[in-house]
């Protein structure tokens, strides 16, 4: 797909450089500076702007909606193959009565698209080739035939005004009132079908085997979805172009997939993203430099995807990075608490506080480092700093005891129950101590018969000691805050 797309872009650039007429942008229909263009776009005074905008909204909606299902069904490449496979059908639909009759083109393209998908499944079913190879084969063959047919039509005496070249890269401004009517019809049918058969689509996408076992007509659902998909590819074709239309299926749905864990939200979000990308494409194509709408829409959708990828609240790169960083900071604080505990343990808890000097020696760090760590504890209410000595606050003392207990319990568990040598368990316990929850600890204590000493002979702090003589247990994995 990316190769086809880049090659197409190259052709486009050459075409744009050599013949300005071919460099199709909405703007070629009206020419003035961009600020008045914005006003013209927003006031919708031109019919071509209205059609372009409505068309973009409709195609964004239907592509986003149906794209959701091909993404969750892992059929994204099928969308790509389908969009290329419809091109010969577009040409034949045109040849039917030598005009750009939207209905004839829709019918021709749908037949070609379904034939293409049929061939893909026939090849992968009857030969040893797998679906990816079959998709590649069918996609290229149909696209090649389509290009030849379109070129031949362009050479016909009446053909050069056919506007079929718009089907390659897309031109929303070329949409006519009939096109819009058809787009509205297809989009309405798509919305109605998805709403009506949402339950069946959900079940058959998640678990086809189970769905068939409860008597859902999974094969018909698949064929129905492919038919709707073909129709929505065809209506999107004129505005987005054969080369890029699959991006309008895949990109909004992929962005939504990164943002939600429920299919119905994914579908709604993908449709909204499709509409947003469509409108952005139409707008930029109108006010910006003479560029076709299709690539601009796709860039808009890709921008949405990038935003979801980077800033998604749960699966986003930034969110995951923050979470890791917060986790690392917490681990560091807990390690400082543990070091304080160790220092105090060495004096049999005869001293109240821990000097920064002792902490630094214990941690084999500089006094400055110890001070920095101490201040971090103070900031989180885990210790107080008075003079050059750190004192536990009650929550700090509790957490320190828990961490030391977790560490020693885990070491004991590994040596006793997993038969790991006592000198091999420390590293593992260093990590585990921070993540053991209270219920796991209870379980460990029970399994180890409430042992009081770890494999190295050091005391395991009891619940009493941890809670400062108060045996009341507070549940949950302490957050150290």
């Amino acid at each position: 797909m990316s190769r086809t797309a880049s090659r197409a872009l190259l052709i486009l650039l050459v075409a744009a450089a050599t013949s300005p007429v071919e460099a199709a942008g909405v703007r070629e229909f009206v020419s003035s500076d961009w600020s008045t263009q914005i006003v013209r776009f927003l006031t919708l005074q031109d019919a071509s702007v209205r059609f372009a905008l409505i068309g973009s909204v409709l195609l964004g909606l239907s592509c986003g909606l149906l794209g959701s299902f091909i993404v969750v069904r892992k059929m994204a490449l099928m969308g790509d193959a389908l969009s290329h496979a419809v091109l010969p059908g577009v040409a034949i639909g045109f040849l039917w009565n030598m005009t750009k009759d939207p209905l004839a083109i829709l019918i021709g393209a749908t037949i070609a698209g379904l034939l293409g998908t049929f061939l893909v499944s026939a090849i992968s079913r009857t030969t040893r080739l797998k679906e990816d190879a079959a998709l590649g084969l069918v996609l290229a063959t149909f696209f090649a035939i389509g290009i030849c047919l379109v070129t031949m039509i362009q050479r016909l005496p009446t053909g050069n005004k056919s506007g079929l070249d718009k089907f390659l890269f897309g031109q929303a401004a070329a949409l006519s009132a009939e096109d819009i009517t058809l787009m509205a019809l297809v989009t309405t049918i798509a919305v109605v079908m998805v709403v009506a058969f949402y339950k069946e689509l959900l079940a058959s996408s998640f678990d086809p085997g189970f769905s068939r076992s409860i008597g859902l007509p999974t094969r018909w659902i698949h064929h129905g979805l492919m038919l709707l998909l073909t129709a929505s590819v065809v209506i999107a074709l004129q505005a987005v172009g054969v080369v890029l239309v699959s991006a309008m299926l895949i990109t909004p749905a992929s962005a939504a997939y990164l943002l939600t864990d429920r299919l119905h939200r994914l579908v709604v979000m993908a449709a909204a993203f499709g509409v947003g990308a469509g409108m952005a494409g139409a707008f930029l194509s109108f006010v910006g430099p003479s560029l076709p709408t299709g690539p601009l829409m796709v860039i808009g959708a890709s921008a949405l995807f990038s935003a979801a990828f980077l800033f998604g609240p749960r699966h986003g790169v930034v969110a995951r990075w923050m979470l890791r960083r917060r986790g690392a900071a917490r681990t560091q604080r807990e390690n400082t608490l543990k070091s304080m505990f160790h220092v105090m343990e060495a004096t049999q808890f005869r001293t109240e506080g821990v000097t920064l000097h002792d902490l630094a020696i214990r941690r084999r760090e500089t006094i400055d480092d110890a001070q920095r760590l101490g201040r971090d504890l103070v900031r989180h209410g885990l210790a107080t700093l008075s003079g050059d000595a750190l004192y536990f606050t009650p929550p700090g003392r509790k957490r320190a005891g828990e961490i030391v207990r977790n560490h020693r319990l885990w070491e004991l568990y590994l040596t006793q129950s997993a038969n790991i040598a006592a000198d091999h368990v420390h590293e593992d316990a260093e990590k585990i101590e921070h993540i053991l929850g209270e219920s796991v600890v209870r379980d460990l204590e029970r399994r180890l018969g409430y042992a009081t000493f770890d494999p190295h002979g050091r005391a395991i702090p009891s619940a009493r000691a941890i809670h400062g003589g108060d045996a009341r247990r507070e549940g949950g994995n302490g957050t150290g805050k």
Partner: protein
Amino acid sequence: MSEPYAPLEIHDLTVAYHKKPVLWGVDLVIEPGRLIGIVGPNGAGKSTLIKACMGLLPLQSGWVKFFGESFHKMARRVGYVPQRESVDWDFPVNVMDVVLMGRYGRLGLLRRPSKADRIIARACLEKVHLLPYANRQIANLSGGQQQRVFLARALAQEADIYFMDEPFAGVDAATEAAIIAVLRELRDMGKTLLVVHHDLPTARQYFDDLLLLNMNVVAFGKTAEVFTAELLQKTYGGRLTILSEVAQALGAHGASR
């Protein structure tokens, strides 16, 4: 239970993949209220048998009847737990969504799950100790919990005969105990359960009856009667029986045509 017909009757069932038979001439009559284990070596056709019964695979010959009728008519009375690996656990659904799918067969086209369906789904989750996880995305579950979600979905089907494909595969001991408790409870309610299982020692403890399978039925009967060294040897030993050699040849013949 005054059912005139057996919950499941299989007659001369043959199933082939690409013309190569994987199950040959299976004849079976299953009694109601039995917990039946299907055991046999890899490639013996255990999953194929239950999938073929439910029409998920085309039959080369033979027929299958549920309560005297075709599967199509009786689909509502048949519950199914597919293999856990058969689905994508990153799919955007939560635990409740999956369990509610168990109700879809009863709902029919166009109808949405009602409040009553949700109550049933919650009760099924409770039975497998997963109610606190109802709103979790399914990727955030352990393997054992995922397996129990599938079991809860099957319970929500409120079927009379259940097929389960390796429900104990890769689960922890606690889950295994929870699952077997649920299966026994279903059996005691008069339901029939056919469970594909691949661990022989536990198969002996868990199941009332055993179906020893290796391309055809080696033995079928009470566990105590068929769990014998001789029959197990017959099932597992000597993979290259005449049957599988001929099947191999048939596959080659089919492919060359």
